[in-house]
Every structure is written in C-alpha cells, then in structure tokens.
C-alpha cells in the first residue's frame, strides 16, 4: 500500500501525499500550481472552460481525452498524464496548429472559453485527424462559447485538421516514454489522507471488494460527473471515497441463439462503449451521443449512471428496454438482477452499502426493433425532459413482445406496462401504436419542473409511440429532423 499519488502534469512528475477526496483537479491547477490558463466557468462540468486532457493507460495503449477539471477529483488522476493549455505547443515550441488556426479564423473574442475549446479540439485532432464539421460539433458539445456563435471556431477546427502534424506532436512523440512512466505508478492500492478525510484508490477490482469491506459505507466514485457536483455545488462530505474510474473496464461479447450478449464492466465510459453501441445497437448511437458533452462521456461510466439511481439517467430507459441485467458484487459474492428491479423508488436502489455494480449484461435480440429517444430543451448536452427506450418484437405481422421504458416520467426509470400491454398481441399497425399512445397516459404521473411541464412530458411520451410507428411505416416523408434538414 502506498500513501502518495503520482501523476504527470505537463512535462513533470508530481507526487502528493496530502490529498483529500474532495480536492478537485481544477483547484489544484489554479490555486496550488497557479496554472491559470484553465478556467472555472460553472464548476459543474457543463461549460468546458476547465477542459484539460487526461492521458490514461488502456489495453490499447496511452490515450488522451478531454475532461472537465472542475468536477474531476485530483485523486482520480493518479497514474495519469494531465495536460493543460500551458503544456500545449507546436513541436518547436511555438503555437500549436490548433492555436494558430483559432487566431487565423478569429475564433476567440473574450477568450475565457478559448483554452477549454482549444483543449477539446486538441483531443479531437489527436484522436480523429479526419474529423469534419459534424464530428467537430460533437467534440464541442461540452464547450460553451457566448461570444462567437461558434462559426469561426468550427472553421478554425477544420483548418487545424487540414494542417495535420499529429505524428510530430509532442504527445505522440513522447507517448511510449510517458506510458512507461505511468505504468510504473500502478500496482498497489493508494490511500491518501488530508485533515482526516480519506481517498482510496484500489489496485484492482478484487482490491475494491476488500476496500469496501474495510471501509463500510465508503463513497464509490467512478467518473464523478454526478458526485463531482455533490462537492462543488452542495459542499457535501464524501469521505471516505473510493476511486474506481480505472476499474471494471472489461468488455465481453458472446453469440447467443437470438443474437449476442454484451457484458460491460461497470467502469466502461460512454466513450469507451460508443464503438460497441454503434456496431451492435446502431439504433441507439445518436441517443448515445446526446449523453452529456464529450468531456462527460469521457469520464462518466455506465455503471455510475445506473448505480446513482437517478430518475433522469440516460442509460436506464434504454437498458431496461433491452432487458439488461446487472451483476452486483459484495466481497466474492455476486448476484445478477434485472436492471429494472434495481430501481426501487426515488433515491432507493437494491444495493447494500458494501456492494457494487460490477457488470452490465446486455442481451442484443436481433429480432427486436429498437429505438431510443431523448427529448430535452436543448438538443445536446442537456438533461432529458423525457427519455425512452423501445424494443418491439414482431413475428408474422403480430407484436409478440414489447419492452418500453421511460426516464423523466416518474421517480425512477420505469416500464410503460400499460402501453406494452396495449401493443402485445396486436397486429404491427398504426392502431396498436395509437392505443399504446393513449395507454401510456395511465402508466405515469409526471412532474412539472424547470425542464418541462407534466403536460408536455405526457404529450411527448404519447407522441413517441406515433414516432416509432411512423419511422417504420412512412418512408416517403421524413419523420425526423435529421432527415429533413437540408431537404
């Protein structure tokens, strides 16, 4: 066991012993290191002014991802390489191609969002050198700019992609050496303490089970995209905290009689799961890219999204519709339950204090027609007013099974049992979906809040049944915005 965390910050190695679980990376950078190029805009992971790159080891090597330093806990960058705007430059030390393009295209006005935007674009430029405007917009979902209207930023990004130069970039040139340095930091559990507050970084999943036994009631933190706000917004005490973002990353895919079964480690991030979603659940790809902004998808984990039990988490409606199960682990004991049974009531889940979500098991039924819908005030990087997952099985023109779950409609993500019943056994035709649209009104009693009124939620929920049918029945006229824009 070690009592110091180690990481790389730009060009140098840092070793810290006094680190509290609630210390954020942003405060460390700005207050302790006076690296003031990284800004605080919102302290909740929604504006991107604090974006830095975090390089971490994966089975495929060292990868760099933009993350929000404001809600990223310092302890969670153990064994990582943190790159801030101060650590960015061209190979020769001058302006990086992205920085130069931002100047050439007048991409900054007040400049406060600029370092964060530059860092997001840097992450994209490295990961996807061929990115076009659409991909660039997706990469900037987590970066707000209030001055420019974004147009010159997109143009700058396109120019930077065209400029190329990735192989000569210092993060590419030094990657093997850095990876080696980072590898040397891992292997043992790290426990940190500051003013009686404890942060524990387990060595592996087996060690996590032990840690939870040793620290009953410890707070588990994976991506911190929610727990980060408990600290920055609600000033909550999270000690002792166990940092698990580096654990449970396994992905296994096996063929089954009706399709495939995907077993995702709870620590798989939204970004890590994306290729898998695109390949095996293409109907959910667009939905997936509307979960948070890129930084949030790089940090947030599917296990965390489930375990925190929110009624407005984005993955549960989809996973419930898919009939997913979760594996809960306590010590060396495991149990597997249907994910819908995990959500007991608002704020209450079927998980003991020393138990953790280890694996998500997703059956992919090739016979089911799948749809995932998210409705929000702003299309991207917003919390849903209503989210829904639909899985409908049709055999011989008859609906043989319907699994439909909604988020944002009740205190928990929940199946629309009445609507499902209205569909099951009916001919696959408009009448059945109209009936289901009427029936769903009795399945939920939604609330009104700042995101949406109860009336809007209910109307949209009903309309999604019409949408599901129209998408499959009326190919002549567009039924979705993405089919109509530019038409």
């Amino acid at each position, binding site marked *: 066991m070690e009592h110091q965390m180690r990481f790389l910050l730009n060009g140098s190695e840092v070793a810290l012993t006094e680190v509290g679980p609630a210390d954020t990376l942003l405060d460390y950078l700005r207050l302790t290191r006076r690296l003031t190029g990284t800004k605080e805009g919102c*302290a*909740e992971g929604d504006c991107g002014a604090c974006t830095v790159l975090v390089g971490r080891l994966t089975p495929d090597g060292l990868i760099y991802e933009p993350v929000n330093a404001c809600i990223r806990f310092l302890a969670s960058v153990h064994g990582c390489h943190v790159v801030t705007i101060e650590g960015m430059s061209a190979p020769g030390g001058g302006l990086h191609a992205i920085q130069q393009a931002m100047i050439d295209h*007048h*991409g900054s006005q007040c400049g406060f969002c600029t*370092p964060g935007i530059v860092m997001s674009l840097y992450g994209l430029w490295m990961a996807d050198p061929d990115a076009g405007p659409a991909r660039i917009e997706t990469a*900037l979902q987590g970066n*707000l700019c209030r001055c420019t209207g974004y147009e010159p930023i997109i143009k700058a990004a396109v120019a930077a992609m065209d400029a190329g130069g990735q192989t000569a970039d210092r993060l590419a040139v030094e990657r093997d050496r850095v990876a080696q340095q980072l590898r040397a930091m891992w292997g043992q559990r790290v426990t940190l303490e500051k003013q009686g507050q404890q942060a524990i970084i387990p060595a592996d999943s087996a060690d996590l089970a032990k840690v939870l036994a040793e620290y009953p009631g410890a707070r588990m933190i994976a991506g911190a995209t929610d727990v980060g706000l408990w600290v920055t917004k609600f000033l909550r005490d999270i000690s002792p905290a166990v940092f698990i973002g580096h654990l449970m990353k396994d992905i296994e895919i096996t063929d089954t009689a009706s399709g495939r079964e995907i077993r995702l480690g709870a620590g798989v991030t939204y970004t890590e799961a994306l290729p898998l979603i695109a390949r095996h659940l293409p109907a959910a790809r667009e939905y997936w890219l509307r979960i948070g902004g890129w930084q949030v998808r790089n940090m947030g984990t599917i296990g965390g999204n489930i375990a925190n039990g929110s009624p407005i988490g984005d993955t549960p409606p989809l996973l419930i519709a898919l009939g997913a199960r979760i594996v809960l682990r306590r010590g060396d004991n495991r149990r597997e339950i249907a994910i819908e049974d995990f959500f007991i009531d608002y704020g209450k889940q079927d998980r003991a204090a020393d138990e953790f979500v280890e694996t998500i098991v997703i059956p992919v039924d090739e016979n089911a027609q799948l749809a995932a819908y998210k409705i929000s005030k702003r299309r991207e990087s917003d919390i849903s007013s209503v989210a829904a997952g639909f899985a409908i099985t049709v055999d011989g023109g008859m609906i043989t099974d319907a699994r439909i779950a909604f988020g944002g409609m009740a205190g928990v993500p929940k199946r629309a049992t009445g609507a499902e019943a209205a569909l099951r056994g009916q001919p696959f035709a408009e009448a059945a979906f109209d009936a289901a649209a009427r029936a769903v009104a009795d399945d939920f009693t939604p609330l009104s809040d*700042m995101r949406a009124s109860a009336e809007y939620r209910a109307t949209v929920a009903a309309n999604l049944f019409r949408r599901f049918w129209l998408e499959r029945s009326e190919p002549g006229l567009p039924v979705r*915005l993405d089919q109509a824009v530019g038409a």
Partner: protein
Amino acid sequence: MKDANQQLGHAHSSIPHDSAIKHVTGRADYTDDLPEPQGLIHAYLGLSQCAHGKITGMDFTDTLASPGVLGVMTAADLPGVNDVAPTGKNDDPVFADGEVRYWGQPVFAVLAETRDQARRAAHKARIDYDVLPHALDPIEARDAGMGYVTEPLTLKRGDAAAGLAAAPNRISGRMRIGGQDHFYLEGQIAMALPGEDDEVTIHVSTQHPTEVQHMVAHVLGVPASAVVVNVRRMGGGFGGKETQMNLFACVAAVAAKRLGRAVKLRPDRDDDMTATGKRHDFVVDYEVGFDDQGRILAVSGDWYARCGFSADLSGAVTDRALFHADNAYFYPDVELRSHPMRTNTVSNTAFRGFGGPQGVIVAERIVEQIAYRLGLDPLQVRRANLYRNGQLTPYHQEVTDQILPRILDELEASSDYHARRQAVLDWNARGGVIRKGIALTPVKFGISFTATHFNQAGALIHIYTDGSIHLNHGGTEMGQGLNTKVAQVVAEAFQVDLSRIKITKTTTEKVPNTSATAASSGTDLNAMAALNAAEQIRARLVEFVARTREVAPADVRFEAGHVIAGADVIPFAEVIEAAYLDRIHLSAAGYYRTPDIHWDRKTGRGRPFYYYAYGAAVSEVSVDTLTGEYVIDRSDVLHDVGRSLNPAIDKGQVEGAFVQGAGWLTSEELWWDDKGRLRTHAPSTYKIPLASDRPRIFNVKLAEWSENAERTIKGSKAVGEPPFMLPISVFEAINMAVASVSPTGQPALLDAPATPERVLMAIERLRR
C-alpha cells in the same frame, strides 16, 4: 509563429484580436488569474432564502466558528451608504437591511482565509424571516399594486385611439417575452487592495470602471479620488457587468479596508446567476389598425416589464423598448406606454439590445398577425411599412439614413427567398411530421446612449522616447475587439505598425469620468477620443518637423513607419527622439462627445440617436411536430456596420449576436418556482446555444457599400447590439412552421422563448 502585432495597422482591415495569442495559449489574465497579494483573503456572499420577507433574526454562530473565518459583514458594517443604485434612487442596497425583496438577495458576507472556507461558512448562517407575499410576474405585480420602480414613459405621435377607430382592420394581442441570463463565461469577480489613508485599488471585471469607482467611494464614505479601478479584460460582459459588479466591488473594498488585507470576491455560477440581474421579461398588450394592403395605420401598446425589486437601469431599458417598438416601420398614429413594474425578483439590468429586442419583436409579431389576417407573405407587409426618409419615429426623430430597401433587395436575391418560401409552403402542404418555416426580418437600431450625457469619452496617449506608444482609453475590453479597433485608428493616425502600440488596462487613474462600455458605443466614442489625442500629438510633431526640417507643415506626412518632410524620410522613432530633445510634449488627453443629439423625456421628443444601424436576416427552420424540437436549417444575414473598421471583428460580432439572440428566443428559459426561487441558475438547467445549435448553413455578410452618413470614426457604425435582433427571423420562421398545422390558417403566436415545449403545446392547440 505569426504574430498579430507584426501586421501593419490600418483601419478597415481584418486584424486579429489584440489578445488572440494570449487567448489561445491561456496567458490572457482575467481578474481571477492575477497574482494574489500576500495575505489575500476571500469574501463570500450569503443570499436570502425567501422572495419577500422581514428579517427577524440572523445567527452567525456556526459561521463564525467555521475554520478560517475572520468575520462576517452585514449592512451595519458598511462605513458609507448601503446603496449601489446606479441612478441615484437609493434603492439598491449592498446588503438587505431588515427586509429581503427577492430570493437570492445578498444579506451578508463571510470573510475567510480561503474561498472554500468562506463559502462553506456562508452556508452555515441562519437567517429567519417573517415571510410576506410576493409577486414575480409583471402582470401579477400590477394586479398586486406593486407599482413602478421608476417613472414610466409615453411616446406619442398623432392620435392612436382615433387612428385605431378609423382603421378598416384591427387586431389586438398579448405577447410574453422571456428574459435572458448573460451567461458571460467569466463570472462576477472583484479583488480589492487596501492602500494608504482612505485609498483602495480594485481589480474588477466591469464594463463601467467609473461607476465602480463612484459606488465604492459612496459605500466606503471616501472621495472618488481615493478609489482606483482597473480592468484589463472581461471574459464577456453583454451588459451584465454594466452595473451588476458594483456590489461585488463594494463588498471586496469594504472588507479590504476593514481588515487591511487584499480581498477577493467571486461568487459561484449559481449565486452569480441568482443574485445578478438579467434581460427584462416583458408582457406586451398591443393593438394595431391596418388597411387591406397591410399598411399599418395606428398602434397602441403597453410594455409591462419585470424590473425586479429596484430600478437599476430599468428606466432606460423600458424607454428603449418603446424606442424600438416600431422596429423599421412607420406608425402613422401611435401611442406606446412603458410600465416598469416592481417585482420580487432580482433587479433586471442591461443586456445587449437594452430593451430594444423586446420592442422589435412586438413589431414583428404585429406584422406576422397582419400577414396571416390578410393572407400575405409577411415580407410584403414588412416592405409596405418600412420607413421612408423624412418620416418621424414615435419619438419625433426624423429618419434620414434609411438603407433597408437595398438591404432587403440584396438579401432576398442572395438567399433566394421567394423560391425557398414557395418550397417551404409546398413542403408543408404535403403534411407530415416535420414542418418548415422561413422568415425575413429587418432591424433598425438607434445608436447613442439615450441619456445624452453618457455620449462622451476620453483617451490618453503617451509616446515614449524610443517611439513606443502607450494607448489608453475609457472603454473596456470584453471580447468585442474594442482595443484592437482603437489601436488600428491610432496606428493609422501615426502610420506606424500596430506592434508599436501598447494597449493598456482600463483604469480610472488615466481616463476619468468614463461612460460604461455599452450601448454599442465603445468604438464610436473611444476611438474618436483616441484619434483626437493622436491628432494633438501629430500636430505638435508636424509643427516640430516643419520647423526643424524647414518645410511647410503641409509637406509633412506620416507614412509607413516614417515621417516624410519634403525630401527627408525619417524613421518614426527618430522623429520622436528628436522631438523629445526639442522639448515637444509627447502626451495628450483626447476627448470626444457625440454631436447633434438631444432628448427631452418629458415631452417624448428629440433626436436621441445619432444614427441608425440596419440589417436583415432570412432564416429557415424545421420543426418536429411530435416533440416541438427544431433545427435552424439556414440563416442568411446582411448587416450594416457602415464602413467597417475591422471586418473580421465586426462579422464576429454579427455571428455571435445572432446565435446569442437565437438562444434568447429558443432554449434559454428563466424558470422560477412558486416560492420565487430561480431554478435555472447554472448551465445544467439554463441552456445557451451549443455549436450544433447554430444555423446549419450560416451566411453572414456585411453591407460593404454602406458608409455612415454621420461623421463617425472613419465612416463606421456600431455593431454590438443591432445584430442581436436578426434571429427574430428564426423565431418568426418557427411560428410559420407551427402555424402550418392549423387547418384554418391561424398564426402560431408563440410566446418567447420558443422552447420545444411551447412549440409542441402551440401545435397541439392549433391542431384542435
């Protein structure tokens, strides 16, 4: 490495922002980035948890016992006056004293060694209230007899009642227009450093250093000369730092003097959004009379504004709403009345457009309704009502510089408006889930502070003996490129490279009695003042060179880094050194005041605006009629900035204003709960546009042929605010798409913002 400052400095060229390199490398210092003085302590505000109530008790026991806490300050601890009202109404307390008037009003401040300690301790205070009834909405407030926060205004020309009575067609309606949070990326912040005697120096993110100086002096009870206010740059302002930083600066200053230590105050985003004013929400009741061709004959309207608990700038904001209630249209008989309602909400303030947008959008609503009533293309109605030169506005200013007909002609052609409108009508005629809309809306925006005395500015130029130039002016840089434009003008005056000019922080020590950098006036005023300073020094240099080189003054020219005197070509630096040795004064204070403007608020007559800026936009949208979501397919803009000082910067202002304005009208929604608590107070709940929300095709052009008819700085026009109203075209296009579901051809009449929810609910209503 290409350095912006290596380029030759000339007016009318697209030179990058002077801080661009610092922006992209993270080396641009904002107030929170400045090196902190040793012993700096932090203040944090405690906010009310009640929309309206008497304070019956304040218990700071737990706060004071918290780690690192050095003290608590309340209203009783202010040495001077407990007031930061910008208009002298004495209605804007620093700390609530006895009574709180909105949820989130500052009641006290905690001082502690670290910001985290101060923040945590602030949450431990217990304030007890005797809760009183509250009113949030302007109509609710009117009905509750809350009264006005400031004097209302009536603009009147002709006889609106008679005009309405005589009109062949009449429509009346009510429109609700939402407010808007500034969402400057850099929040409010102030750092105060105590000086000797009564002195204090403040670094603050402000658009109005002089007002901070006055307010701090006022609250400390010291003369203005004891207070120095500095601002290098802001991370966005948009009007949100015209008066709203006063309170933060005053609290930091009082704490600094009290403890003899430097003090920083930076609220978190939630407190910033809760405790600072926003764009005013309005409820507008209007009536219009018109003929069968769609010509407007008479308009009468009442603009009820949610001003909040105090006046702040609400008088001028509600005035400007009326000044722009005609937008670009001549109203033969007109009467417009403002109602600046007192409400139990944060005191609303300046925001880009300053009430103008809430006037303009009603004019466009009126046009839309006339068009639907008569079955016309709204553009026909717009054209039929455009001002012609010589016509009078409702405030009796003659329009003399009308260029909208040409702008509309060019934009109609370049955007292929008519064919695309037909295609949209055809698309919608097919029925289907996705409906489209297209709209072309013009903007006419009056330039000048309507408080005439604000239309003045100063600048200070020093030339040092090495030929380097120190440039200072009274304007502030918030991203709009003001410093770059002013430097271009000075570089051109001396014909030197921009790299020779050092643009320094704005400070009350160098240029006194400045106006806010607001009302789009920053360049108009400050570049003129700087040019005036440059011309004074240049005249002295010409005299010196002519005398020493024995040529006529008319034969002395400044050209490309040199001074040419007859046959002599002398490098600029050499001239400066020689002038110094000859004891020529190489420093000058410049000054400018806008000519020819006057305004008599009592009679509602005058020429409040020096000139108008014009523009127009065509936007096309797609709307999902099952969910109310939408996409801006395309926007084409043609905007008038006169003869642009810097086309790249001006275009950036137009694009930025467009997207910001589109946010106001679409996804940005302020939502209060029934307790009077603002629940959209962070980017997680308050949704400003993302990159993907901007128009999918976005063609923005400046009207390159335009030149200001008035004598402005090099024929340019102001650019900050006018383009903010261009995205009303988006709003009107959404209205058209929504209206297409009506079987009886009814207009959509959406309230703003047109959130997906409002859109869907309107669709459901129209379908029935």
